[in-house]
């Protein structure tokens, strides 16, 4: 089959781009391995809610208009929201098509799948950044008596074996799962490396309201000092809940979760933790302080100080002066380990030389090195919010200009 553009992936990013392509009458197809919004539907744990408030769920031509703009969607609600969007924009989605290869062909690309081949001028990669859980290589040295899970396997605390749990990683995923498991009555140890602390609300408003207003979420990839580092920063410790609860480390220790340093290795059945916990917490506290300073400055310079409560600061993260540096994993002190150590994209089907030595795509704000190839939906692709739903909207609207300019030059 022949078409102008093939979009791979029918999540928010692929659909946002589909809408932009349709608006410019660019013939295209959206290939989806399962169904629309598949990752949201099938690859997340039961209690997960969107980190961004409903009012921030905006896609090209459509935004949330339900009864609870300040709420946070459950995963089925997100999946329905995106599925509705696909219908609303009449996206040419082909479901159940697994792409097996993308390679250069003549002046464009050949996209092969289990349902046939497409020849096209342009390929848009919208398969997401969180396809495969990352687990440290030393995980193979764990005693076999332990149960291990990744966030992709984890559904809820009831499915876990009885007994104490160690959650490794303290980004949004780790702090949420640790809290839920602790509430199930289990002892929980959380291994904490570099993390980003954030309150759910500040001065009476959602932190995302602040970060959007002050321009933090819109900070561009070509404005930050070190974009390579910025793309690897872990997600802020946030969760969406009716209580608008904060999930920072102080909230976790207040319900009895024990903090230990970054898991640095496994040696003869013992987990070894880094002695850097205090510094990791201090770095996060100082970074939060700088963020709040910037938000306060924005409020003042925009005359908002009378419409929101006055500024305040959060207690520094309380850290045990000598947290344990090791744990015996054979004694029953830990029965289950959950690896909340991040995700990586899966580009095993991509047969174009565009990956760097870390397996990430080389691109400039979503314009991939290979002509006519575009990327969407990865962290800090074009701006800090690129991996959020609202980021898909603006990034697609940016990239459609470059994409159509490329097609005009080809013609």
């Amino acid at each position, binding site marked *: 089959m022949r078409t102008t553009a093939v979009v791979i992936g029918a999540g928010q990013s692929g659909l946002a781009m589909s809408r932009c392509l349709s608006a410019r009458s660019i013939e295209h197809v959206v290939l989806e391995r399962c169904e629309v919004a598949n990752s949201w539907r099938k690859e997340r744990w039961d209690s997960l809610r969107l980190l961004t408030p409903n009012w921030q769920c905006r896609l090209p031509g459509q935004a949330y208009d339900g009864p609870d703009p300040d709420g946070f969607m459950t995963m089925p609600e997100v999946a329905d929201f995106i599925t509705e969007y696909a219908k609303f924009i009449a996206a040419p989605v082909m479901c159940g098509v697994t792409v097996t290869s993308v390679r250069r062909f003549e002046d464009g690309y050949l996209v092969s799948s289990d349902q046939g081949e497409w020849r096209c001028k342009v390929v848009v990669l919208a398969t997401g950044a969180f396809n495969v859980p990352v687990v440290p290589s030393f995980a193979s040295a764990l005693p076999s008596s332990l149960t291990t899970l990744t966030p992709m396997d984890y559904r809820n605390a009831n499915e876990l074996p009885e007994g104490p749990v160690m959650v490794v990683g303290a980004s949004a995923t780790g702090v949420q799962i640790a809290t839920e498991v602790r509430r199930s009555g289990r002892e929980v140890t959380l291994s904490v490396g570099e993390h980003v602390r954030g309150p759910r609300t500040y001065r009476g408003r959602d932190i995302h309201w602040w970060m959007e207003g002050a321009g933090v979420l819109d900070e561009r990839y070509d404005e930050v000092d070190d974009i390579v580092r910025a793309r690897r920063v872990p997600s802020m410790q946030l969760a969406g809940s009716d209580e608008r609860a904060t999930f920072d480390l102080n909230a976790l220790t207040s319900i009895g979760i024990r903090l230990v340093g970054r898991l*640095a290795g496994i*040696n003869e059945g013992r987990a*070894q933790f880094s002695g850097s916990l205090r*510094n990791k917490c201090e*770095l996060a506290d*100082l970074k939060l302080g700088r963020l709040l300073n910037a938000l306060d400055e924005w409020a003042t310079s925009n005359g908002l100080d009378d419409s929101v409560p006055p500024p305040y600061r959060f207690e520094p993260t309380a850290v045990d002066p*000598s947290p344990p540096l090791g744990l015996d994993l054979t004694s029953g002190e830990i029965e289950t380990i959950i690896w909340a150590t991040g995700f990586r994209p899966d580009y095993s089907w991509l047969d174009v030389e565009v990956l760097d030595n870390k397996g990430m795509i080389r691109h400039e704000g979503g314009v991939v090195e290979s002509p006519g190839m575009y990327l969407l939906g990865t962290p800090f692709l074009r701006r800090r919010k690129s991996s959020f739903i609202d980021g898909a909207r603006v990034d697609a609207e940016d990239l459609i200009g470059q994409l159509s300019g490329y097609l005009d030059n080809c013609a």
Partner: protein
Amino acid sequence: MTTTGTPVDNGVNVEFLLGARGLLTDTPDAAKFQWRATCEWQNGTHSTSTVEGFFGLGEEQKHRTLRSFDADHPEIFASEDNGVTPVEYVLVALASCLTAGVAAVAQNREIQLRSVSATIEGAMDVRGILGVDSDVRNGYNDIKVTYNIDADASPDDIKALVAQSQKRSAVYDIITNPTNVNVEVV
């Protein structure tokens, strides 16, 4: 940030370091360094170590001069105290690494330093090394570093210098994380 008009100068060539970082991103092999020391037993607990050559940027390198370091134990351990103890060298290594980092980070953040001093204290229960109690570890059970810094920056910005220095410090990493050590006899 500095409030004066004069350029910030902590004696750190940040442009060189940033250039090296860019270069080594593209040529990771050149970033593979090997640091070396040799050690000669003198008598009792006294030994003399020397440092001169190392490997880096793809070839053999040399310090400007060969330097030697005497290590011994104090007289209360019935030694001759011909040098500082090896564990004190560890404290020296940590303090000097963190302090170099403070200067480099300050330069990069355009913060002028006027003075930086650190006190470093390592707590150790010597029943470990004497074999009195096998539950007591040999090494430090706690290390405390206290910085006193005078600089053109807010207290939080100064704290951030020290925190970032720890994040980028080799010796801090060596001490806080496990390292495989292979000792052979030839």
